[in-house]
């Protein structure tokens, strides 16, 4: 059975602005992509799904009274685009289902994977959506002198999906974390209806989960 993920948000003036996706890596710890909160860790919250342990439950298209739990930034690695948040001291999730972390090293081109994220969350949609994809390539992304392992998955991603775990269909392990889509110079040049047209394709990037494992040691 797949494992539910969570929407990440920022609470401002009584309104929650959804930022992306996060998922449990320990009973009190969530992982996400670092860029989702743009270096500002104030008032970050996790949105608890309505039926945490029922994967197939109908989700409300319009949710009223979101169940929010504050999070504290525990660790961050902006270079690999990863961050870890914790619940308040002593708090844990009830009956947590925690995925096994592996690595893009365990994937091959053509492998089936799936993501569980919160697409369109910038526009308030707090619905977890599963998308199937294929590993299109294993790539080394250069940052400075580092060569960082990623996979390209054949999925069109939209805002809200960053931070989503990428599961291997063959064993359910998390091979990567979705961090974005190809765009020259990182995009941001043009926005049409809140969407960068340069990202309208099926070249999405996931950073290897091994870097997340390194942060949890």
């Amino acid at each position: 059975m797949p494992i539910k993920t969570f929407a990440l948000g920022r609470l401002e003036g009584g309104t929650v602005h959804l930022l992306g996706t996060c998922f449990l890596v320990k009973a009190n710890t969530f992982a996400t992509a670092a860029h989702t909160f743009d270096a500002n860790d104030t008032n970050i919250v996790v949105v608890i799904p309505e039926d945490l342990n029922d994967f197939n439950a109908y989700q409300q298209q319009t949710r009223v009274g979101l169940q929010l739990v504050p999070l504290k930034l525990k660790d961050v690695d902006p270079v690999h685009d990863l961050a870890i948040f914790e619940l308040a001291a002593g708090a844990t999730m009830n009956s947590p289902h925690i995925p096994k972390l592996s690595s893009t090293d365990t994937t091959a081109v053509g492998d089936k994977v799936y993501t569980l994220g919160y697409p369109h969350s910038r526009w308030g949609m707090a619905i977890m959506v599963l998308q199937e994809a294929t590993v299109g390539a294993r790539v080394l992304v250069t940052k400075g002198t580092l060569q960082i392992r990623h996979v390209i998955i054949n999925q069109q991603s939209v805002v809200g999906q960053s931070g989503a775990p990428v599961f291997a269909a063959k064993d359910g392990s998390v091979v990567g974390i979705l961090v974005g889509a190809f765009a020259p110079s990182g995009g941001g040049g043009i926005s049409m209806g809140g969407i960068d047209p340069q990202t309208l394709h099926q070249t999405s990037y996931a950073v290897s989960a091994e870097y997340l494992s390194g942060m949890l040691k």
Partner: protein
Amino acid sequence: VIEFDEPHEDWLGHLAPTPKRVLKGLLDGGTSPEEAIELWLGGSHQANIAGMGGEGVPKKYSAVFMNELRLFICTDDPKYKDFRAQFPKINKGTGAAAISALSTAFASSLGVATVIIVPAIVLGLMTIAKVGATAWCERTKK
């Protein structure tokens, strides 16, 4: 100008395990501290990857960070008057306290999480210690 009378390579020892490991990997590979600051404060937005999260166009923190550091090190701007009085010299003995105090000030001023700003400050101080404060201030003068 703040004095750096003991340039040394131990600054990374002030960092938590994750930034220490990542930045050591960058610096050991030949990435300059300046480039590392750019990556640390904007790494998510580089490498031709557009993030699929957040509230809008990501901010460019590295430029404002460097301006803030210059304000502290090179000028007599009143904003950092108390810090300059507290840390007229930054060396092995005062490094940890200076990093801690500056982190609090910069995090508040820039609206950036402390755990993100601390490594940037360490890299900034490494950059300055390498060439000397006077030379760095001259080089970065607008």
